[in-house]
């Protein structure tokens, strides 16, 4: 089963996504504190990262920079799971083909399409 790590500080969304991801046949790894995420990526490597952006104390962009930068992980596909409108412009500037956006709120077909983009 493909492992999806969801980094998200909204408990409601975490709970819902936990059920939804299982329903569509993935193994969710839920991370509510972004500071734990890097260790978990190392110790329990997922197949894809679903990453919220507006989080504290480290936001999604900063986490992504660390992940790709000093942490040295360049291959893990990342779906930025966000309601932030400016995300698209920023992603375009990264020129990283393994980063895409899943716009919140995402419907079930949106979610499936987003995951299948990297996991087929």
């Amino acid at each position: 089963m493909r492992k999806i790590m969801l980094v998200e500080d909204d408990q409601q969304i975490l709970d819902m996504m936990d059920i939804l991801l299982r329903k569509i046949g993935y193994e969710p790894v839920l991370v509510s504190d972004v500071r734990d995420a890097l260790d978990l990526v190392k110790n329990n490597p997922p197949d894809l990262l679903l990453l919220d952006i507006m989080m504290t104390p480290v936001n999604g962009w900063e986490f992504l920079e660390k992940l790709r930068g000093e942490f040295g992980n360049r291959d893990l596909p990342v779906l930025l799971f966000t309601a932030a409108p400016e995300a698209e412009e920023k992603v375009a500037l990264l020129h990283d083909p393994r980063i895409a956006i899943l716009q919140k709120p995402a419907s079930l077909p949106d979610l499936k399409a987003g995951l299948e983009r990297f996991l087929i």
Partner: protein
Amino acid sequence: MGGRIFTVGRNTISETDLVRSIVILSFTICSILISAIAFSRSIPYINYQLFFIPIVYAAYFYPRKGIYVAAVCGVVYQAVGYYYSYPDSVAMLGVTAEALLFVIIAIVIAYFIEKIRSGEARYRTVFEHSQLGIVLFNREGFSVRQTNDKFAAMLNYSEQEILASVFTDLFFIDQEKERFLDRIDKHRETTDFETRLAAAGGAACWVNLSWSMIDDHTVSCTAININARKLAEKLNNDNMMKYRQLTEHSPTSILIVVNGVILYANPTFEEFSGYGAPEVIGKELVRFLDPRDLHTYSEFAQHWISRKPVASQGKFRFIRKDGGIRVAILFTNPIVHANKPATMINLMDVSEKLRLEEKIQLDNDRRRGIIITVAHELRTPLQPILGYLDMLITDPDGFGITDDTKKILERCLVSVDRERQIINQMLELSVLESGKLQLSRAAFPLERLVHDVIDTSGYLTKADISVTIPGDIMLSADRDRIYNVFDSLLSNAINYSKPPRNVEVFYRMGSTDEFHHISIRDNGIGIPPESIENIFEPFQLADAAKLSRKYDRIGLSLSNAKKVIQLHGGDITVESVVNGGSTFTLHLPKVVKSDA
């Protein structure tokens, strides 16, 4: 000199010349006779020296003719001498030598006289033809001793009238006479003493006087007429006064600059810079500029130094005396200031304008920031609702959901979806209004796009749609945004009509070739004339209260569509008949402007 004149043959002879000729002739004849007697009687005391009298006399007054006189005397003297001395060869040789001496003496005298005469003539020429007025007067009493016609002409008098006058009486005003007396008491020599002399008829004549004492009693004074220059100066001053009045009351700052140095600053500049005019005048303009703008300034200065009117493209920051910064746009004009080329610089203070613009920009940014935050906050809670609804609807059996409950859940899902769209439109509007939107243009076939919209949104299931667009029409535009425009317009056309719904999409050739005209016509309810102007405003609906409930939509799509088309350099227009349908027409420019 001069006197009566006689005519002898072709020559005219003055009385003086006649008298002198007679004197010379008589002395010559006398000398010949006396020397003949002296030779015949062998009187040794009287000899050739007698001839010196007519020769010197003639040579002195008529240098050239004096030589002829000497020659004639020499020949006659020799003839007489030979006649009486023959055959004494020694005596004859002496006679010849004496005759030659006459000629030599005449030549020497003539040479020196000529030389003196030419010097005199030169002096006379200088004096009489001088452009300068010359007047010689006594140091005591100032009576005029000599003058030239130039000086007399300057004052419109004759030379005789000037000669009969006292120099100090010629001054136009007493103060200037006092100033002259004071100066001549203190200095033996003076140059460039400018004053006015009284001309005939009461007029004043501006002169520049220079004088020096040529001996203890005589002052030689030259005068240059400077009326024209004084007149020009006065005109210039009058102009300067007018100029000054204009600039002193100008609402813009005005500087007059020569070689980068400020020669004049008006009160508005004092206010602008915080410096008083005396602190500014004589200083270089760059000293008041923000050092960050020096480079642009020197570039700009290159232009106005070439003496053409120029306006600055950019803005210049000036540092005020109090340390504050003011911003101005500069306009320059070449002018003449105090007879020299100068540059007039107008400074248009744009500080306040910039401050307001910045504030508006800041407000806009803040507003956009709020919209983005709000959109984020509105979207996030929708995620669990949407997720759970999807879960329940896709697996009703797994969750033990009846068909009726499923229908209810599906309606909830539609509402969540609509809410999502509203937020997206709101965001799109804030992007469109921010002015920061970059269109990503590409060429694509129009007909294909319209069919894509219809197919993707499944409009054919809701209405009868005919599309009449030539297949070769290509648009160069932001495809995604044009897609949304057609989606909004088609969605409106369908939503605002009752079955049987007929929608036509057609391409029209305009009267000019500059635009594509694409119309979407429906057979819907139409728009009342009083609402037609407002339908493109955000959240404006024709008859909003009724329609929004009846057709379940909000009014952002049309305003967004219009903004998108306007960003492309085009527009959307609408014609409508209540209960007769509406036609929305897109006008898109065929040629894309580079800055659009």
